[in-house]
């Protein structure tokens, strides 16, 4: 069961608390998170069910590589962190 945590910037829009969810890949984890907290879905995923362009996910402090199919693997002891993708400029 991976531990999923969210950026505090989400709290002002949606009530979301850290949760532990099953899943072998990040897509399974994200979909389970969105099933348990349905309001979160439109904040994390777009109309096509893909990760929003400006949302990023870290697994054990490493940013996921496969944003298209969300196939990055998650272990039972993984820590998943979901945040807005910040950039400079």
């Amino acid at each position, binding site marked *: 069961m991976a531990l999923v945590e969210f950026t505090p910037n989400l709290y002002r829009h949606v009530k979301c608390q850290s949760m532990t969810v099953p899943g072998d890949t990040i*897509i399974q984890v994200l979909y389970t998170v969105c099933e348990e907290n349905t309001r979160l879905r*439109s*904040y994390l995923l*777009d*109309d096509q*069910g893909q990760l929003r362009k400006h949302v990023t996910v870290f697994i054990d402090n490493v940013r996921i590589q496969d944003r298209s199919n969300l196939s990055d693997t998650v272990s039972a002891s993984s820590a998943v962190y979901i945040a807005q993708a910040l950039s400079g400029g």
Partner: protein
Amino acid sequence: MSTQCWIGTRKGLIQARRHADDSWSLSPPSFPGDPVTMVLPAYDGGVTYAALNLGHFGPKLHRSGDDGKSWQECKAPAFPAQYKAGDESSNEAKSVELIWILEHGANGDLWAGTVPAGLIRARGQGRLSNTGG
């Protein structure tokens, strides 16, 4: 003549009211800090809508049945889900990035113009009893 107007800004939504002595007052902002891209005043005592663009977290739609005293988030206009994992031809399936215009339709319908270009109808959303998800 209307005695109020809505002012959507990049930092929230403000309601301006004109009083009997022709003076104006401004309400405290709703959605402070958030870009409000469109406001649709209530029609015939119905529901007022406010469209937000939260940037990282996408476009959102809120509704008020009490003239802006309180707001509830409702389901935002969306394109049909067409993406299929592993099907590269579906990689370009579109998602709403911005709600730039709203209009009341017949029978409580709500019309939304979006970016990317789209015109989306939400059936019955104009009635508070038919709240979206």
